[in-house]
């Protein structure tokens, strides 16, 4: 029986060993919002297992530019899994095969030599494709503008303990607040519903004392805006929760429904 140190060494080698691979990328190309899109196939050679998925697109784009072609348009910003910009539907799953991982944090060791990887943009009526893999997700901004904030005057910064918050509520609120608004929930939902995103924003504030004064009006106006933007209705299939890179719980949607029901009958206006 090998020692624990040797076994750990094997594990590290198995998971972290560097290797190069040749891939075939099938990427959705669309010139503009009104153009007809199509898949284009690109062989990509010598991809390092240590590269991120976005770096592979960078690599491919370098080649396309050198060849005088049009580089693939894609959204990205922080590349450390917190901004929510990267948004690719990779091999039939938002953000690719790894659980609780954004596209920018997806490393190529998730794939093996010879794989064909299909890359598509988010597909939803409320997220129209602007170009290639870039979609217009401004509908999320308008949802937040509809009530995802606290507009009461909270005064100066006060001592953390001055406002008592139940620990369970604080934890649940914090978990909901970790939503990065990437839109994977909408992309995965068969109804293209934004309920998980909306519920995260509603729960984040509904569980804190500062969110109470506008709790009813917030949920009513945000849900109304969601319908206006053309998102679908939630049927609790659970796909959103399964693909969320921040593991936002579907329980938040039930909480939002409860708030919506109560607000519907008890709202002041």
């Amino acid at each position, binding site marked *: 029986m090998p020692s624990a140190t040797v076994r750990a060494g094997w594990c590290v080698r198995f998971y972290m060993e560097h290797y190069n691979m040749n891939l075939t990328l099938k990427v959705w190309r669309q010139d503009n919002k009104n153009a007809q899109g199509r898949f284009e196939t690109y062989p990509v050679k010598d991809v390092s297992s240590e590269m991120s998925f976005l770096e592979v697109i960078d690599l491919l784009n370098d080649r396309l530019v050198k060849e005088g072609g049009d580089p693939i348009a894609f959204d990205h910003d922080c590349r450390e899994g917190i901004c929510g910009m990267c948004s690719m539907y990779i091999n039939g799953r938002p953000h690719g095969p790894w659980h609780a991982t954004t596209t920018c944090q997806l490393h190529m060791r998730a794939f093996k030599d010879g794989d064909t990887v299909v890359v598509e943009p988010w*597909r939803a009526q409320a997220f129209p494709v602007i170009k290639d893999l870039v979609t217009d997700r401004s509908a999320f901004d308008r949802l937040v503008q509809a009530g995802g904030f606290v507009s009461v005057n909270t005064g100066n910064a006060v001592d953390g303990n001055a406002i008592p918050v139940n620990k369970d509520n604080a934890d649940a609120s914090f978990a909901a607040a970790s939503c990065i608004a990437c839109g994977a929930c909408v992309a995965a939902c068969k109804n293209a519903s934004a309920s998980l995103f909306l519920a995260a924003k509603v729960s984040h504030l509904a569980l804190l004392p500062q969110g109470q004064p506008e709790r009813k009006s917030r949920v009513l106006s945000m849900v109304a805006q969601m319908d206006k933007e053309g998102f679908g209705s939630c049927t609790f*299939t659970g796909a959103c929760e399964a693909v969320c890179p921040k593991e936002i719980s579907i329980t938040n949607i039930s909480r939002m429904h409860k708030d919506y029901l109560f607000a519907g009958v008890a709202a002041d206006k």
Partner: protein
Amino acid sequence: MGLTGLFLIGFLVIHVGLNACIFADLPFLNPSDNGEMFNRAAHFMGSTIVTRILELVLFAGFILHIIQGYQLEIQNRKRRGTAYSVGLGNRGSKWYSRSMGLLGTLIFLFLIVHISAFWVPSRITHDLAPVAYGNGVEMHNLYLRMFEVFQSPLIVLLYLVACASLCFHLLHGFQSAFRTMGVHNKKYLTMLKSLGYGFAVVVSVLFALMPIAMHFQWIKPD
């Protein structure tokens, strides 16, 4: 959808409980029952003003659930727009959770056959054989009607497909209805999930056993 769904779940409890009275005729229970318990229960359901009014409410519940379901399905299908080349499939959700429209349609089609086979002759045309028990009150022999209908293997097959559809519809629908109504307590949700699975299986198996038991004549009129 959730509210009408919960209402129909309540109806299923009554319907399966009442229909399970046919099993009183099983040889090891009461072989001389000859459908009496079931016929009496069915007669009660059709003979009081309260139950007849509730019947109308039930129809309204069904119609609302069906209309809402189709509206939701049509609206939601439009929201996706272009379909993915490679879908998420079962990696994110159960197939039956994504197929509530299809399962509901199968149940709806079955419902038309079911109503025309039992409800119409019992409540509208009254072309069922009469039967009377000890107190002299004459009632429809629905037990005999069930036996006659379930002698057709095709009808039995249709019922079994409908029971399977109902089972999968409930596997998702039971817990989803409670979630829709705002239940978000983790303990209750865990309990409701188990209860939902149990309810879906028990109700569907009991319903499925009815045509099977009559077709294979485990129970039959004397």
